[in-house]
């Protein structure tokens, strides 16, 4: 049944709808709040006396790439331990969520974290795709995030969208990683290189950046190919790449795809003798478990583990890590997780105000601004200082090579061992 309202009623209903829309719009655009004497344009978190300060975690914690996130998360936990699990007089409550190293996983994890209004900041993401899906959801509710291993240049680009402006990066930028890979490739005296990515934001932007730099330097990109993340048969694409006769294949792809590549490459006659250069996306025992003995000889770029380049606290971090988890670091991002968490704690200490009753108030925008203006942090990765777009980490790269296919032998510096510079 259709009820036709009189003209006056329709006008009134229209006005009410318009007013509601404006009200909702106003509320979502501006959440300025004053609590306990702290005024912040996007809201204030009150932490009652004796209650914990909630810090979220958003990184891959399951699946073939779990080492990326778990390693960073463990680094963050060691940082909290170093602060005796207390910040501004409150215990720290760390709430990590699995973001699956995908856009959808990032969205799901961020949505769960954003639903908790007590969370003041998030450590992570660990993958660029997670950042693309999750960071805007977090920043939409005023939660800044301290990136531990998402390296895509777009995340801190000058023209990055508003949703990414709550992200500070405590790992290198892929623009630097691509440049380092180019320097290494040139040292091999090759001129013809092919690239392969898996469509993820990380892999695609790194492969493209490498290609641009390589061509600018006078080299030739014989093929710029892609697979989908679920591909298990990479032989057709290798056959296609082989038809272009490259001397090197730059493949910044993740664990599972890299293992398929490593094990199937020898079957393609035109590719059998072509070297592959991967990245620290495969810097984990999971790669050895998937690739087995075929991993021997596989080279990858990663952060240089030279003690002279890392921070003075790095050896202590590794010792605490081993003691706490009963194993050596499982990937190369524990120091980034440690620094990200430390920066978050420093930012909280900088902006939090505690009143006479022992309640603490933290302005959300003030916290984000403090995080993105981190300077002079003598972190585990070295000196940490953020630029105005949120790139904070030092970046010294090296090339590593796996020398053993047994996952039990994984230890950065030994397997894979550093081969360049």
């Amino acid at each position, binding site marked *: 049944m259709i009820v036709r309202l009189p003209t006056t009623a329709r006008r009134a209903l229209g006005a009410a709808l318009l007013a509601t829309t404006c009200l909702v719009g106003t509320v979502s655009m501006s959440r300025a709040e004053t609590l306990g004497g702290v005024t912040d344009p996007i809201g204030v978190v009150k932490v009652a006396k004796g209650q914990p300060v909630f810090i979220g975690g958003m990184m891959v914690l*399951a*699946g*073939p790439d*779990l080492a990326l996130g778990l390693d960073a998360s463990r680094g963050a936990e060691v940082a909290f331990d170093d602060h005796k699990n207390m910040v501004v007089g409150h215990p720290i409550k760390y709430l990590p969520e699995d973001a699956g190293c995908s856009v959808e996983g990032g969205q799901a994890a961020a949505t769960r974290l954003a639903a908790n209004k007590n969370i003041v900041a998030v450590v992570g993401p660990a993958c660029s795709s997670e950042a693309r899906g999750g960071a805007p959801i977090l920043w939409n509710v005023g939660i800044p995030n301290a990136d531990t291993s998402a390296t895509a240049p777009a995340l801190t680009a000058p023209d990055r969208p508003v949703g990414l402006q709550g992200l500070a990066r405590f790992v290198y930028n892929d623009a630097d990683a691509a440049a380092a890979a180019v320097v290494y490739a040139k040292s091999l005296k090759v001129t013809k290189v092919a690239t392969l990515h898996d*469509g993820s934001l990380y892999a695609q932007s790194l492969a493209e950046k490498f290609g641009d730099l390589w061509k600018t330097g006078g080299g030739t990109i014989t093929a*710029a*190919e*892609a*697979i*989908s993340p*679920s*591909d*298990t*048969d990479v*032989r*057709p*694409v290798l*056959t*296609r790449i082989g*038809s272009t006769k490259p001397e090197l294949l730059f493949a910044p792809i993740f*664990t*599972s795809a890299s*293992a*398929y590549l490593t*094990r*199937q490459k020898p*079957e*393609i*006659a035109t590719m059998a003798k072509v070297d592959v250069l991967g990245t620290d996306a495969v810097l984990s025992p*999971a790669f050895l*478990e*998937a*690739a*087995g003995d*075929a991993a021997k000889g596989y080279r990858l770029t990663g952060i240089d583990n030279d003690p002279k380049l890392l921070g003075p606290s790095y050896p202590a971090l590794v010792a605490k890590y081993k003691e706490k988890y009963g194993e050596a670091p499982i990937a190369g991002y524990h120091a980034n997780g440690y620094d990200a968490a430390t920066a978050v704690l420093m930012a909280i200490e900088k902006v939090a105000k505690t009143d006479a009753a022992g309640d603490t108030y933290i302005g959300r925008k003030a916290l984000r601004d403090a995080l993105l203006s981190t300077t002079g942090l003598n972190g585990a990765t070295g000196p940490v200082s953020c630029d105005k777009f949120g790139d904070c980490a030092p970046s010294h790269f090296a090339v590593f090579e796996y020398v053993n*296919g047994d996952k039990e032998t994984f230890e950065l510096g030994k397997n894979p061992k550093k081969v360049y510079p």
Partner: protein
Amino acid sequence: MFDVKDWIRRAGWVDWFLLALRLLVMAVVGGGFISGLLHPRYGRDEWLSFAAFGLTIGAIYALIALGYTMVYGILRMVNFAHGDVFMTGGYAACFSLVACNRAGLLSSQPLLSLFLAVLGAVTVSALVAVLAERIAYRPFRKGRGLAPLISTLGLSFVLEYSARGMFGAQNRSFPSLPLIDGTVDLLGLVMPKTQLVVMLAAVITMIVLTLVVMRTKIGTAMRAVSEDQDAAILMGINVDRVIVFTFALGGMLAGIAGLLYGLVYKQVYFFMGFFLGVKGFGAAVLGGIGNIPGAMLGGFALGLVESLGPAAFLDGLGVDSPYQLRDGIAYTMLVMVLIFRPRGLLGERLSTARA
């Protein structure tokens, strides 16, 4: 005889839309193919390699598709957990070979190792399939509606996450068999022995299956139940036994597929049954679900289209990174076949035979 004027007079907008779609697809595929021929990028060896890759993965799709199609033929039910039965076979084969390797059998007794891997994969997959039938499907067999479908989906997740819990979320390296390492020269095409072995094993398995279905008493009973379950009961056939046998047979084929998959792609992981299961189901539908030769044909066709399609016409169209789109090509072909031939490639032959 087809009367064009009559068709134009009767055609509605849906007919015109489908005609336009057909012409568009033909133009895209034909244009890409011709352009590829005019600007050849690959030599004979590359094309043969693409075909060999397609036949290898197609053989695995076909083995999985057979499980889907047999259960559908008997129960008119799609068993969405079948892909995960394949996954259990892959893990069983992997663990069998790892154990053989630790015992030193892989190098000293390679044939025995292979036999043990086949035995492990087939036994575990058949057992999982039979248990699935007993626990998750039989209670819903007489029911109507979507309960059996939901039950198969639920069981699929139970199997996946049980495997994840037991074996971990990481990919596991599948041991190589020294017996079939290396390459073989086949009429000028140098290909890995593994691929040849996988294709031969799949073909032999399909021949054995055909003999079981067409030449044995239980196979005759399967066909009878597939034709008319009530009439089969009246003829004294134990339908429950036939259904259990069908699940076991499908499980065995999935187990062999799991082993062959591991030998070629050299990794197993808990989620591997999902994508391969979807592809196997697609192959079964492509060939005409319920039709055993159709499942075989659908599997090989899907594998070949995936492997040859990107090089055959996407390259010609100037599409960048065409192999990223091979799933898109495969499923587009599936959709097109279903639009223009809803019963699949061999579905009509079955219905004609039945009629």
